[in-house]
């Protein structure tokens, strides 16, 4: 993963040198690295004064915009959902590598924060389902903390049955909706 980050840093650096002010780095996208493309962006683009270089700090947990390992389909970190059995809040073995990967990311990115949203299927009491969704979210939170994430990096909430991902009253929809989702800061 580290090599991708460094190449990103390099591209960000390139576009910085090409003329956009340092404080606009956050908004620069990876595609705009060709000097010509950046120059065409508008009259307000000022050349960077000599010696000023955009700083990209990979330790700060906030990766350059436009790319995120968290959204790279090749990374397990892009997988954000864990599914549960009926009435259960136990994280099944098949999802443990996923939870471990996110715990590792949180360990290595101390400022990263996640929101765990627990969900249930539509059957039964809305309030009980809200509590059940909370238990599912708490189960994930507990596991993340056990694996080294810090308490203040993880908030667990429940959406109960209120935000079904799959609509309809079928077993298929029910099992899709018995779910924890992991959302990183900026995604909710």
């Amino acid at each position, binding site marked *: 993963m580290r090599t991708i980050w460094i190449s990103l840093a390099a591209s960000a650096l390139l576009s910085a040198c090409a003329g956009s002010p340092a404080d606009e780095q956050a908004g620069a996208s990876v595609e705009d690295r060709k000097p010509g493309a950046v120059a065409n962006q508008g009259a307000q683009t000022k050349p960077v004064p000599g010696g000023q270089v955009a700083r990209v700090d990979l330790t700060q947990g906030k990766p350059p915009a436009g790319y995120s390992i968290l959204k790279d389909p090749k990374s397990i970190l892009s997988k954000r959902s864990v599914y549960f059995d009926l009435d259960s809040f136990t994280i099944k073995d098949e999802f443990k590598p996923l939870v471990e990967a996110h715990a590792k990311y949180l360990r290595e990115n101390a400022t990263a924060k996640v929101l765990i*949203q627990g969900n249930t299927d539509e*059957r*039964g*009491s*809305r*309030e*009980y389902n*809200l*509590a*059940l*969704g*909370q*238990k599912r979210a*708490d189960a994930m939170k507990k596991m993340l903390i056990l694996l080294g994430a810090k308490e203040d990096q993880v*908030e*667990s*909430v*429940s*959406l*109960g049955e*209120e*935000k079904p991902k799959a609509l309809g*009253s079928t077993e298929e929809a029910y099992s899709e909706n018995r779910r924890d989702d992991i959302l990183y800061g900026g995604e*909710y």
Partner: protein
Amino acid sequence: MLKRWFQFLVLAAAAFATAASAQLSIEITGGGANRLPIAIVPFAGEGAIQPGIVSIVRADLERSGLFRAIEPPPIVPAPTEASAVNFPEWRSRLADALVLGSVAVLPDGRFEVRFRVFDVVKQSVLGGVAYTLNRNQVRATAHRIADYIYEKLTGEKGVFSTRIAYVVKRGPRYELQIADADGAGEETALASLEPIISPAWSPDGRRLAYVSFEQKKPVVYVHSLQTGQRQVAANFKGSNSAPAWAPDGSRLAVALSREGGSQIFTVNADGSGVRRLMSSSGIDTEPVYSPDGQFIYFTSDRGGSPQIYRMPAGGGDAQRVTFEGAYNVSPRIAPDGKSLAYISRNSGKFQVAKLDLASKQVQVLTDSDKDESPSFSPNGRMILLATVIGGRGVLSAVSADGRVKQRLTVSSGDVREPAWGPFIRE
């Protein structure tokens, strides 16, 4: 069984194109066996106000499942509350009770309605009242008249003047609505693009506590109906839900996950003074106070499956209350404190059950299969609930003895999360 649609005109709705389509209509799907035959003669001079008062009074009484309205013959001139009553004539028409009245226009443009209730069998006057009203109080006055007649003839308070709250979901839109107990005259208290659940009336009927997801997670609000002013009552880390008012209106019981798990706390309506009532390793939620304020009933999975428990309102040891079945949730105590309505899962069907707290007898009251959120009428006679019919969320009501059933539907959207408001104190 009586099967009939009651569709009412919306008074103020004409101004809003969508309001008419949102109208709740009520269908009685089962009636009581012994309904009291009552003749309510159109009030003399009633034509001066619209909609007709008597038709609303009749519909109210019939909807209760306790009365059968007898179509009176055309009488010329129209009798008034002061007219002499030919009791044998009414008896021959099989009426047990009779209501006569009149409407007069007052010099200031307002109206006066006078009426009397007669016991035809005993050939006596049970009582009478006069109400003064303006043009937009016709429905409210009709409900008061129905309440008066109901109380005179049954000995218990009527609930026709009370209001109900519920949530309508239409596409991505959620609306918390308030309507008359007959479903008419609905008003939207809150519209949101995020879910709204668990409305709970304050004991004085002026405020609603509810859970809104507008901050992307469940937060408890207290909403003043008259001003629209909203106050956060619980927004702690994690989920905040299941508000229930203490009978004196001073505090709310809520379920919070701020200390891990879903646990029961009490909090002042302005969010101050949060206090944990008990701690368990499992889910504790859906608290509700007994009418005397002594106990809190709640749902807990501490025994391995969700069941209903109760504990002293100040905290302390919990006792299990439900034993039959593996899923008993959403406790609601009858206003007299003697029975408990809740949702019970029976062979995959979620139905309203009633437990007699003294005899421990359980009665399943409904035959639907996706019932949720039972709510007692303030006189304890009816239980309002949410269910699903034809894939759509509807409200339905069943009498506490299971004999009378009604269905309330809106013409579009899903209706859920009903809460029957308290008696209105005047």
